[in-house]
């Protein structure tokens, strides 16, 4: 703990670096996972095959995967970000797909039957209904990414992993190891909580609760 208080600037910088790395990777990952999950949703026959293939990537140890990328992309944040994108892909596509598949076919048929085009069905019906499950996916992917990004320090990507690896290589620097471990956990926990809150605001039940509170505020029930 003492290291955090004695070097708040360094810790904060590393934390921001860590956050930037995972956040950036996740943005790319979401941008890929969205169309991918729509494609898999549309062509359901291939979904088992596709998810299986993604699952294989997921089982490769992250260090091994980053090492494989280094000769191609160099010893820097790029290798780590690409690895993060690949790892979070499985989690995101699975959840996005679960969100889409959770919508009753009757609702989609009604939407099409009323004359919505593909874009309108997606924007007005599929996205809002799948959103809570999708955000849950982003939340899990974020936590996974924060953890894997720690390894990235070994490959010159920076981030809070630096504290851990420095602590190991410098004799007696347990304070750095502790600082790194604590801040990484805090970061993961905060992100988890934050996204959980976002997730809940999009749940239909939450909407109804909010509406009922408003209604009661407007005309309190007689006792």
């Amino acid at each position: 703990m003492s290291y955090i208080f004695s070097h708040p600037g360094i810790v904060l910088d590393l934390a921001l670096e860590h956050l930037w790395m995972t956040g950036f990777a996740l943005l790319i990952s979401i941008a890929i996972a969205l169309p991918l999950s729509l494609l898999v949703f549309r062509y359901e026959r291939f979904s088992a095959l596709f998810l299986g293939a993604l699952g294989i990537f997921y089982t490769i140890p992250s260090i091994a995967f980053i090492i494989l990328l280094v000769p191609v992309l160099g010893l820097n944040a790029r290798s780590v970000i690409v690895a993060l994108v690949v790892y979070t892909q499985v989690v995101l596509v699975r959840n996005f797909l679960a969100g889409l598949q959770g919508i009753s076919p009757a609702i989609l048929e009604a939407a099409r039957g009323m004359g919505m085009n593909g874009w309108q069905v997606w924007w007005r019906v599929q996205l809002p209904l799948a959103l809570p499950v999708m955000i849950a996916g982003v939340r899990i992917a974020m936590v996974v990414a924060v953890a894997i990004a720690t390894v990235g320090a070994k490959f010159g990507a920076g981030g809070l992993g630096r504290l851990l690896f420095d602590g190991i290589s410098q004799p007696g620097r347990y304070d750095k190891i502790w600082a790194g471990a604590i801040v990484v956990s805090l970061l993961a926990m905060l992100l988890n909580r934050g996204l959980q809150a976002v997730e809940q605001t999009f749940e239909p039940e939450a909407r109804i609760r909010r509406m009922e509170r408003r209604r009661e505020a407007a005309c309190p029930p007689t006792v």
Partner: protein
Amino acid sequence: MSSIRFEHVSKQFPEASMAAVDDCTFEVASGSFVVLLGPSGCGKTTLLKMVNRLYEPTSGSIWLDGTNVRDLEATELRRQVGYVIQQVGLFPHMTVAQNIAIVPELLGWPEARRIERVRELLTLVDLPPDEYCSRYPSQLSGGQQQRVGVARALAGEPKLVLMDEPFGAIDAITRSALQRELLHLQRKVKKTILFVTHDVEEALLLADKIVVMRQGHIVQYDTPFAILTNPADTFVYDLIGADDVVRQLSLVRARYAMLDVPADWDAGSVPTISADDDLRHALSTLLRTGASALTVLDQNDVVGIVTLDAIRLSTQEGDPS
């Protein structure tokens, strides 16, 4: 109001051995209530879904007011045709008002007109707007949800409404209330309605004309009265249970069995029934009051008379050959 004409319409699904719909030709007159009736798998839903192009026919064509539906943009066509399905399919993340306003919104109506339309329709389906506008579908009973489903289908002022077993998943008491309301509604709003069901009593109660289907073919297309009294073959005969006379009486509306009003008819001197009352009700009124005839009223207009002979005529067993 719109008329629909089916011309040699067939639909063959790629994975099926038999055609789901096989060479169906018939015409639905503008403003009439036509029921597609048959056991499950007979092709009635497939036929319905080809009208708003959720399915495309393999061959043949469907004409809506003289226009081939293939020549219309699918989304444009669907916005002009109301659509109600058994599972209702209300959007759970939208309020009742937002659900009903979907098609008007897609059609680009100004907001004031949309709001007015929503209130008008909620009143029409007997859900007080102030109370139900801002509710979510999950806060409604099954019957209320389907009322909203019907209101939603009518929102864009369609001339034609397609209904796919809309009351199939609703309890018996609510179902019969909804059926009667739908009849009233049809009188009021004067839409052409194409209605799919496998429930014979529902078909006989609601239909102006019934299309009886079996294995993709049309077996008979006629009024409920004609189908009861003159079933085309043993399949139709068995389907409608034509050998049970008392049951038959409860399935025929007075308007289909009544005779013309004689010139010297004194409507005031005999009991009256409504044109939508069934013949069992007519018979019991005749027996109870001892009158020899009844005056049939349709919204206060005298439209015909029912006598014992008229009732007897309607129960004569058709030839099931």
